[in-house]
């Protein structure tokens, strides 16, 4: 495909290349950004007075796989209030908080997002994840592989065989076409296999002679040995419980020893849910200040916020015991889905209310994290879709970050008592468009190690979002509603050099690519470890080892990234 494209006179924000609101032309050819194209042969988009950013990158979103589908199944009432009829180019679909596959792709593309990472996929069910990801159009996607409660990983770590754990992890990634190491409530989900949980970094995981601390440290070393493009991606212990900010901080603190400068070591995901102080729900406080203070003082951690928005949504996580706790307090629907040897999962619908004390604290914690952490390169914007709210709420969250007036509007109607225990009302920081471009594109792309995404330099993928708003003429702090409107419906979304969205409508339905990590561990080393594992593998699992991997032929647009480990 040699289709050339010339985007003229847009106001470009490309923080990775130091471009802050400059008027410039962008040339595209063969799906990537080039120095220049022949104007006579190129299709020209006049973007004068429009905001241009790289295509959005979502570092953590539950869009596909077993538990997303449990969420869809569980919520017919959610679908009935949000449906999209088919058009000449698009397929029909439904779902406010757990949209159907096609709709998920269209909605991301309409907001100018072009790359999305499925947050957690159990290897045993990764074929399911890929079948759904295949069915999500337009965007490029990848899946993080759940390993924090994997028996073989835990056994290797507890025997202090880190290199073998690394080889097994590499095999897992390669055979399930995963992208990185996801850790969900390390040890706790295994304990949930018996209806239990772990509550501290030094609790014992029943029968495994290992603690959450050892799992996190071990997998952090595994990640370094494998040279994976992303850090370990951690959903901390005690997530969603009062006073858990200390658990999150201890989790980050415990791996500081292995940090020798350079790339960060750990990504704390949906940090808002790990950001509570106060010992009970009635005395819940925001712990964001403590976390921000710590993060500002060290370099080895990054995070995404997992912002809560006031809406009715569907929570879903591999953290089975967490969902059971939610069910205990809400007594509504609760689905559970344990996965042998690997992890669990749960789904519970919730409603975040601005009148509620807890809801308001949760809302404030996410924003405080984003506003109190100085370096935007270490913060990514997420709602932990759909846990804090659906991804379609991103423009609203961005408007809160850019405008204290917008925040004030919400606080007027929020729970007063809760606001007293947060510092949000006193924060006057407002994000600039550069900050927004960092937390929604550049930072996630950099943290994920995606070299050709999140920027508009020559050679980058031509994933471009053009919004009909002139940052020179409007003040986002005041005209936050205009920002919101513009970000909701991109004037143009360009994916791999193809114009896929015009004026907020999908005009072309193309498949995206499937990104995964191919770790080049020497074949004999893998064989050695797998030969040792095989008898126990087939004793513990209910599938044969040979039927476990996801064949590459299952992936539409398979795009492996080669990685050379230090093995």
């Amino acid at each position, binding site marked *: 495909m040699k289709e050339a494209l010339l985007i003229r006179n847009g106001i470009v924000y490309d923080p990775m290349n130091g471009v802050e609101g400059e008027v410039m032309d962008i040339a595209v050819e063969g799906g990537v950004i080039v120095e220049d194209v022949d104007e006579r042969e190129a299709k020209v988009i006049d973007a004068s007075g429009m905001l241009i950013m790289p295509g959005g990158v979502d570092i953590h979103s539950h869009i*596909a796989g*077993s538990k*997303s*589908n*449990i969420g*869809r*199944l*569980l*919520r*017919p009432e959610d*679908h009935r209030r949000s*449906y*999209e*009829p*088919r058009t000449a180019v698009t*397929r*029909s*679909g*439904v*779902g406010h908080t*757990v*949209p*159907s*596959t*096609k709709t998920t792709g269209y909605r991301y593309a309409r907001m100018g997002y072009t790359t999305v990472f499925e947050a957690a996929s159990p290897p*045993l*069910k990764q*074929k*399911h994840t890929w*079948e*759904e990801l295949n*069915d999500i159009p337009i965007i490029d996607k990848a899946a993080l592989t759940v390993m924090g409660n994997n*028996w073989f990983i835990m056994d290797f770590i507890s025997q202090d065989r880190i290199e073998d754990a690394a080889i097994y992890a590499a095999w897992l990634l390669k055979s399930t076409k995963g992208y990185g190491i996801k850790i969900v409530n390390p040890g706790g989900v295994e304990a949930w*296999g*018996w*209806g239990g949980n772990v509550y501290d970094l030094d609790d014992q995981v029943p*029968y495994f002679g290992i603690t959450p601390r050892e799992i996190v440290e071990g997998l952090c070393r595994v990640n370094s040995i494998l040279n994976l493009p992303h850090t370990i991606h951690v959903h901390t212990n005690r997530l969603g419980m009062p006073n858990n900010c200390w658990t999150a901080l201890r989790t980050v603190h415990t791996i500081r020893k292995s940090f020798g400068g350079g790339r960060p070591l750990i990504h704390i995901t949906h940090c808002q849910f790990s950001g509570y102080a106060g010992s009970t729900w009635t005395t819940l406080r925001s712990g964001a200040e403590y976390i921000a203070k710590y993060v500002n003082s060290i370099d080895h951690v990054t995070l995404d916020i997992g912002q809560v928005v006031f809406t009715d949504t569907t929570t879903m996580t591999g953290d089975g015991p967490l969902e*059971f706790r939610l*069910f*205990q307090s809400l007594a509504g*629907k*609760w*689905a*559970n*889905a*344990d*996965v*042998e*040897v690997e992890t*669990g999962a749960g*789904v519970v619908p919730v409603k975040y209310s601005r009148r509620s004390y807890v809801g308001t604290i949760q809302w404030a914690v996410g924003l405080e994290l984003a506003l109190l952490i100085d370096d935007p390169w270490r913060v990514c914007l997420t709602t932990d879709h759909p846990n804090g709210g659906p991804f379609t709420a991103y423009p609203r969250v961005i408007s809160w970050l850019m405008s204290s007036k917008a925040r004030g509007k919400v606080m007027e109607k929020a729970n007063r008592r809760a606001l007293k225990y947060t510092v949000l009302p006193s924060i006057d920081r407002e994000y600039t468009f550069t900050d927004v471009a960092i937390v929604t594109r550049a930072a996630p792309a950099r943290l994920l190690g995606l070299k050709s995404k999140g920027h508009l330099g020559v050679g980058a993928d031509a994933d471009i979002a053009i919004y009909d708003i002139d940052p020179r003429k409007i003040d986002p702090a005041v005209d936050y509603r205009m920002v919101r409107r513009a970000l909701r419906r991109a004037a143009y979304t360009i994916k791999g050099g193809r114009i896929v969205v015009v004026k907020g409508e999908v005009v072309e339905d193309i498949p995206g690519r499937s990104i995964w990590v191919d770790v080049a561990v020497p074949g004999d080393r893998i064989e050695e470890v797998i030969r040792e594992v095989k008898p126990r593998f087939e*004793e*513990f699992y*209910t*599938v*044969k080892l*040979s*039927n476990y991997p996801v*064949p590459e032929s*299952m992936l539409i647009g398979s795009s492996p990234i080669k990685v050379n480990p230090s093995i």
Partner: protein
Amino acid sequence: MAIPSILVEEKTTEYTVEDVVCPFCGCCCDDLIVTVRDSRIVDVRNACALGASKFLHMNEGRLLKPKIGRFDTAKEVSVDEAIETVANLLKDSSYPLFYGWACTSCESILLGLDLADLLGGAIDNTSIICHGPTVLAGQELGLIAATLGQVKNRADLIVYWGCNPLEAHPRHLARYSVSARGRFIDGRRDRKVVVVDVRRTATARMADLFVEVKPGYDYELLSALKMLVKDLDLEVDEVGGVPVSEIEKLADMMVEARFGALFFGTGLTMSRGRDKNVEAAIELVRCLNFKTKFVLIPMRGHFNVTGANEVFTWRTGYPLSVDFSQGYPRYLPGETTAVDILRRGECDLFFVVASDPISHLPRRILEHLGNIPVVALDPKITPTVYLSDVAIPVAYTGIEVEGTAYRMDTVPLRLKKIVEPPQGILSDVEILGMILEKLRG
């Protein structure tokens, strides 16, 4: 329609395929060893009698040529002609109904959904006549499930309710539950087994406790158990024909289990109460989770009926009975199921893939099928094929063509291609793809 008994080319080759996933029941056992001699399957090891017979007798009664015309007036046509005819029928149809999908791959189901969406028709799968009520109950409360390996490794109590796996899912007990060995459980002696059924089945005879419930009283018995688990008293002598002392015994066993698993079959979903029965079972398991660890898993029938629910759900948000007539997916069980639509005589074309509804759906719907075109895609000559106006033979998914299927516990597996289909026979994925192309182009 000519039906040659055996279709083999003159070759003398023999090969063996290991770790084959069985395309028969919802167990999807993946350890079969299939031997092929002269392009013909001659031996199947590890499979149960049901699974093995599918492999060994697959060429009996096979549909080999596309046909146009009903009953005895059928005449053989080429694949292209059949596809052309089907495409034209679909073009002329204003509300086609697509049905089946339990015995084929997810890839094929997706194409069915493509067709239904494109044409503004309706689509349904066979779970409406098996575990549809399970799905409805799951929407109401949420299933509390686990993969079968959790049961194999941890469960010290197995309850089979309204199902008879020894005869319907023969390897379920050995591979996944009663005598399966795992990390923490060493087979049968570490487990208690309970069977609740209306008659003493083969499975009931090997149980530690058999509870014989009066037909139609499952809901009452489940509710009584729930009360006991919640430490409430039963102020009656018996519930559903079961003495309270026995119910108490079962409740105690459940509460005392470290990890309990409740498997249930169509005895619960297709008897009086249906989805309410399953809701009662879910509520019981919910209560049990406050005291111990308990899960419930439906005993799904066909090898990919679970997959049909999964694919429907990810594409349309709804697990079955989806109507696209308004341009977007709608779901109203009781109005949009295949049975409802056929009974009201609304659809003007009935398109069947990988199922034999004539043998299974209520007889009254046949009246409407007399008035509208019926299209069938099937490897075999079934009553539905016999009645259809156009039938196109397809390859066996999981034997002659690969694809994805979901086991009863929603674990996805890749079905294998072991032998070539008979000459000129395509997969349903290819046929549906060609029909779609004709409609789009």
